[in-house]
């Protein structure tokens, strides 16, 4: 028995004997120690630098957006927008007539009438619709005139900004004498704005005229008006009366408008978080509201999770508890292999095949009872959601399987000992015990999905408009834009340092905080509900 013991002692010697090897004055052990420590340190520093850069670039947005909003107010755009919102409300009201026309149109088409015949029959309705639209013509003219005036003031304000930037650039390039020659125009906002503020009495007068025209239109019998079904007509009438009140309310809003109301830094941030539009390169006013992108990202992620959670969790339970060893050895690598697909390949598959297939299926005749079929856009939230769901399955599967694996085996044994069946044990003991881990797995899958870029960029359709959720399930087949998608799409086309560029960084910060929050939550859940192994 002497051989093993001598083996042992050589092993101990090998591990404990100081080495002769030295590198930069360090022995082997400390070299390894510093190598690992150094790498960990570099990783932390790089991460910190990225975070600092992200926040530095992003926070510049708040002051830039504040200035953006300040010009919007000082140039009188905000004032004209009070009138413009009335015009929009009027257009929206007109859509009710259009919708009624569309229904009549469809009915007549079903009766087998030709396009020309239908259009001839609907001519009185078109006349009514034209009159309704014309009622706003003079007010529209006023808004357009004052809109032009406000836009001109804004234009000169942005010229000042351009000149200042040019000057700065010249100074940076070391051309001081040239920089001094740049003339920066001065603008006197109050007197420039005066012409716009004078529109108030005119607005009141036109409101009165519009009121009498519209009242006459909805109260006097008219062949076109009577073509609209009674039910729609009465709703249209109520809405028109409500609109007239809204129109009058504009007068007091215009009077109460204060051009000198200060725009705070918080307003710059609040506009980003709450404005419902992401509108760039606008003739009127650029808005950087994250809401449509946030809704789009969330919507796509929810679709993805609806698919990935059942698939991933069930597969994990099956592989860990039900399948035999041989079966598991096939299923496990197969599911994990999905993660190996480059996301651009999946995106390409979505564009070339999946979207097209879904649209083709939606056009099948026996599905025509579904109100929103056939769908128009092949690139939509569902196309992207399905592929993202597929990508989240391996994440959820692996983590959920780990969680189930971590349930102590004596829980199972105790359950069997009490006479419970295999299925009872699974449903009543194992799954509840692993639930915190499974929830964490779902959360991390969500994090995986919301940060994905390529698939949403290629397959989500990139439409800024928030999906119309009043259409019910039809909303699932509308295109959306996402936070990651907008960064990928627009980062290449914005000049660095511009407000648009910084707005994209703000979106990135939001994504970063979201990912951080999800990870934090997942860890908390695992820790909070961890079963004690004792």
């Amino acid at each position, binding site marked *: 028995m002497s051989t093993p013991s001598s083996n042992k002692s050589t092993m101990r010697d090998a591990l404990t004997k100081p080495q002769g090897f030295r590198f930069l004055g360090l022995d082997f052990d400390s070299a390894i120690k510093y190598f690992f420590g150094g790498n960990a340190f570099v990783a932390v520093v790089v991460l910190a630098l990225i975070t600092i850069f992200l926040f530095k670039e992003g926070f510049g947005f708040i002051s830039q957006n504040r200035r953006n909003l300040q010009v919007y107010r000082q140039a009188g755009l905000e004032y004209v927008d009070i009138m413009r919102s009335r015009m929009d409300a009027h257009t929206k009201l007109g859509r009710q007539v259009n919708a009624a*026309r569309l229904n009549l*149109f469809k009915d007549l088409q079903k009766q087998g009438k030709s*396009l020309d015949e239908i259009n001839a029959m609907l001519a009185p309705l078109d006349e009514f619709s034209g009159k309704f639209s014309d009622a706003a013509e003079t007010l529209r003219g006023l808004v357009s005139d004052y809109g032009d005036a406000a836009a001109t003031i804004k234009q000169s304000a942005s010229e000042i900004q351009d000149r200042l930037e040019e000057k700065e*650039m010249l100074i940076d390039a070391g*051309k001081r004498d040239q920089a001094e020659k740049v003339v920066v125009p001065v603008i006197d906002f109050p007197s420039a704005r005066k012409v716009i503020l004078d529109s108030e009495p005119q607005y009141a007068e036109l409101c009165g005229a519009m009121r009498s025209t519209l009242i006459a239109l909805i109260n006097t019998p008219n062949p076109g008006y009577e073509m609209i079904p009674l039910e729609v007509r009465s709703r249209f009438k109520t809405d028109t009366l409500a609109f007239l009140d809204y129109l009058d309310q504009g007068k007091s809003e215009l009077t109460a408008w204060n051009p000198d109301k200060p725009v705070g830094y918080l307003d710059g941030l609040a506009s980003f978080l709450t404005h419902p539009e992401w509108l760039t*390169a606008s003739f009127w006013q650029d808005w950087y509201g994250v809401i449509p992108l946030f809704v789009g990202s969330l919507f796509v992620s929810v679709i993805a999770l609806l698919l990935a959670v059942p698939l991933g969790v069930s597969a994990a339970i099956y592989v860990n508890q039900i399948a035999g060893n041989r079966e598991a050895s096939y299923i496990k690598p197969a599911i994990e292999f999905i993660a190996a697909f480059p996301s651009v390949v999946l995106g390409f598959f979505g564009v070339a095949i999946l979207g097209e297939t879904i649209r083709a299926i939606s056009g099948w005749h026996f599905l025509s009872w579904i109100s929103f079929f056939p769908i128009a856009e092949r*690139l939509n939230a569902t196309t992207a959601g399905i592929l993202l769901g597929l990508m989240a399955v391996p994440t959820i599967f692996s983590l959920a399987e780990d969680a189930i694996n971590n349930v102590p085996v004596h829980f199972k044994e105790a359950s069997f000992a009490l006479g419970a069946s295999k299925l009872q044990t699974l449903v009543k003991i194992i799954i509840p015990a692993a639930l915190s881990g499974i929830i964490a797995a779902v959360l991390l899958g969500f994090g995986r999905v919301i940060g994905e870029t390529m698939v949403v960029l290629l397959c989500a359709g*990139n439409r800024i408009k928030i999906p119309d959720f009043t259409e019910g399930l039809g909303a699932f087949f509308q295109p959306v834009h996402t936070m990651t998608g907008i960064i990928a799409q627009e980062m290449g*086309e914005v000049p660095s340092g511009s407000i648009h560029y910084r707005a994209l960084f703000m979106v990135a910060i939001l994504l970063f905080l979201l990912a951080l929050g999800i990870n934090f939550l997942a860890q908390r859940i695992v820790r909070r509900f961890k079963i004690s192994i004792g």
Partner: protein
Amino acid sequence: MKTTKLVLSILASLSVASVAHAGKVVIKGSDTLGSKLVPQLAEAFKAANPDTKFEIAAEGSTTGFAALIDGTADIGMASRRAKPAEISAATSKGLNLKPTIVAYDGITVVVNANSPVKKLTKQQVEQIFTGDVTDWSAVGGAAGKISVYTRNTSSGTYSDWKELAMKKRDYAPSAQKLAGNEQIVAEVAKNPNGIGYVGIAYSHEAGVHAVSVDGAEPTEANVKSKVWPYSRPTFYYTNGAPAGEAGAFLNFTLSPAGQAIVKQVGFVKIN
């Protein structure tokens, strides 16, 4: 010593790449020009000058100006004129942006080939792209929601269209932004309710139909005589008058041989 070999071969390929740049013309910018016309011009030019190499990137006019200002391109293709901010950015770097008109283009409204709509008015076009009208039945078609396709914001066509067709108003929020003319043609060809706009050279593809506007057809003669309402020039932007290979290529584009290619691709000749 595999690693050493690998490093050496990488270094070698890098040095070759930097040498190659000497005889290379770098052209960046407009997708309208860069996805068809300029590559074909480059091919023809190369046939006569086999030593010249081209690098063409077509991602929108804005990227062309940016590349020119950063000094990473010899020629910037553009389907719009430079904005004041771009000109001042160039001046501050000591550059002088010089436009040369290389071809005329008519932006053409395309609908699906099966759509019954064959003609629109200027006002209807404006209403469709601004979202005032959302259903085909309102402009003489069958009932169905209009799917509006536009170019992305870096495109010169995107901003030209606002000026030419939309009285500078904003696009409907429901419009979908696509990266190039060919994508727009592809989407409209597949969607019976689709509508989009493309350079005239792309309007003859299968599956789409170019509509007449206010009675005018988008033909070469109408674009040239400005009867077509959405006519516009397209440009090469250079830093002053270009020298060397870039200058030779510019001259070739303007020459009769170059202009013959312009016509063949579907654009309108300058003379």
